[in-house]
């Protein structure tokens, strides 16, 4: 297997609504910026993997087909990946496999989502509801997102995690977004502001929720030989782990005290592949799937940044903050930065690459050499992808 390098990254700004752009245009703008970043031309691209989550959002069951030829790539192969919130992560994995296997020299991953064409938030949530088991659970009208609430309550009951602890995640991530010029929701807020925001699904208030963003992100991968053709120093994908769980909200085999067993399995695979044995000591930063504030606290534990039940302490001690031992979501994450769903797992890689290159501006993590990108989707993280990147 060839080593796989990231040779180009790009993205659009992320915001609630790009009223002036179609999903094709958003994809094009991120592709153009990634090609410029790589010093590449579109003819250098041998194959594309599109990360586009939900047909309902784009009003199209084959949105990738309606982008590809407009990128001037007709008669080149392309594949669409759709795995909920892990769409971007799994697309990165598919592209990795195309390069590592020797099938192609240069493969581009294009993540795009345009969520605000759906008439309103209730219609948007309904479209996600159709991700549930169609025979049994979809008729409840319960979004898979609701499955996170139970996991977070479990963490509160068993480890004493509080709503204040979760609010600190929001303050951190909205605050980090102030250093990201492409972020959707930079805010200077306090724990009290978060606690005072309207309750949605106890214990999650509106500010504990991830964003619904529009935007696009692109990553260009190349094998070791081809990587030399492009501008700049490559960043290597050294670990790629993926894992799935039951798609039903409550069905989980007992795997001990892991609330997100697919996340742990994906991280363990990525760590093993990259030779990471001490995550807390060797992961310089992480861009992770903070779909809800409390989830980020659980994830610190799944990634081995701290022990079971120590997530809230890890955060309160500042270890996940900018300048901490393991900064988490310096871009702002899904709560402050963006959540253009299919694009998210791709944008996480864009951000980790910028950090490792030392190009992350005001959000730069000093000395960043190795980073983690992780995305997940479906009921309580039923899909998970973890990616280790190194300079």
């Amino acid at each position, binding site marked *: 297997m060839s080593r796989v390098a990231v040779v180009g990254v790009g993205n659009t700004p992320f915001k609630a609504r790009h*009223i002036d752009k179609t999903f094709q245009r958003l994809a094009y703008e991120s592709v153009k910026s990634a090609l410029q970043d790589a010093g590449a031309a579109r003819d250098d691209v041998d194959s594309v993997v599109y990360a586009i989550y939900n047909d309902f959002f784009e009003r199209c069951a084959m949105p990738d087909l309606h982008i590809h030829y407009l990128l001037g790539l007709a008669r080149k192969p392309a594949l669409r990946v759709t795995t909920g919130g892990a769409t971007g992560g799994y697309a990165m994995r598919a592209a990795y496999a195309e390069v590592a296997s020797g099938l192609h020299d240069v493969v581009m991953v294009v993540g795009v989502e345009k969520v605000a064409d759906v*008439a309103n938030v*209730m219609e948007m949530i309904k479209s996600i509801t159709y991700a549930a088991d169609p025979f*049994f659970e*979809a008729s409840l009208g319960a979004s898979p997102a609701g499955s996170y*609430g*139970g996991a977070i*309550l479990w963490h509160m009951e068993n480890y004493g995690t509080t709503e204040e602890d979760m609010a600190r995640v929001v303050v951190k991530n909205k605050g980090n977004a102030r250093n990201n010029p492409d972020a959707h929701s930079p805010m200077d807020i306090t724990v009290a502001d978060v606690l005072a925001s309207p309750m949605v699904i*106890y214990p999650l208030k509106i500010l504990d929720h991830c964003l619904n963003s529009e935007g696009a992100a692109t990553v260009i991968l190349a094998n070791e030989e081809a990587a030399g053709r492009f501008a700049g120093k490559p960043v290597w994908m050294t670990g790629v782990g993926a894992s799935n769980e039951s798609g039903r909200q*409550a069905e989980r085999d007992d795997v001990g005290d892991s609330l997100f067993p697919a996340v742990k399995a994906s991280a363990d695979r990525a760590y093993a592949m990259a030779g990471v044995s001490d995550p807390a000591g060797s992961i310089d930063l992480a861009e992770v799937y903070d779909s809800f504030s409390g989830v980020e606290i659980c994830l610190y534990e799944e990634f081995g940044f701290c022990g079971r039940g120590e997530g809230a302490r890890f955060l309160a001690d500042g270890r996940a903050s900018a300048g901490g031992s393991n900064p988490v979501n310096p871009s702002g994450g899904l709560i402050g930065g963006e959540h253009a769903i299919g694009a998210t797992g791709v944008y996480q890689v864009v951000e980790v690459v910028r950090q490792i290159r030392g190009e992350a501006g005001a959000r730069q993590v000093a000395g960043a050499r190795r980073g983690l990108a992780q995305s997940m989707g479906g009921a309580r993280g039923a899909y998970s992808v973890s990616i280790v990147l190194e300079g």
Partner: protein
Amino acid sequence: MSDDPRFKPLKEQDGFAIIPDRWKIDYFASAGELSRFFLELKDNAKIMGTRCPSCGSLYCWPRSWCHECYVDCEWVEMSPRGEVVVFSRIEINLNDLQQMQPPFIQGSVLLEGARYPIVSFFRDVAFDDMHKGLPVKAVFLPAEERTGRIRDFYFVPE
């Protein structure tokens, strides 16, 4: 037809064309090998599960084959009793599929003998009285209100 967005004229917003549209697809979905679950639920107010004849796992929601033994399972009537596993309180209207007015409690119940919990709603219980392990039993809607979907029943404390 008049309220169907697919036939309405576009709107203009900030110089951009905003096109009203709708995806509307009707189905007659075959429940296939799972049919007995839905028929028994609607006609007889029973929750059916399946048991693997090889490893003995009891599945509800039912699955027609055991994913570990790769053999066909047998139908079994489930006990309507079980215990609460996880729960949360829904405070807003999430969408028009939702049957209950918020706030309401949603969560999972492990039916007696089952390998995995099922998702449902809780009624006649205060949120503060909910806890893991709380004994509950299924209550079925009256026959004329049942439609053969899992929202035909909910759980109350024993």
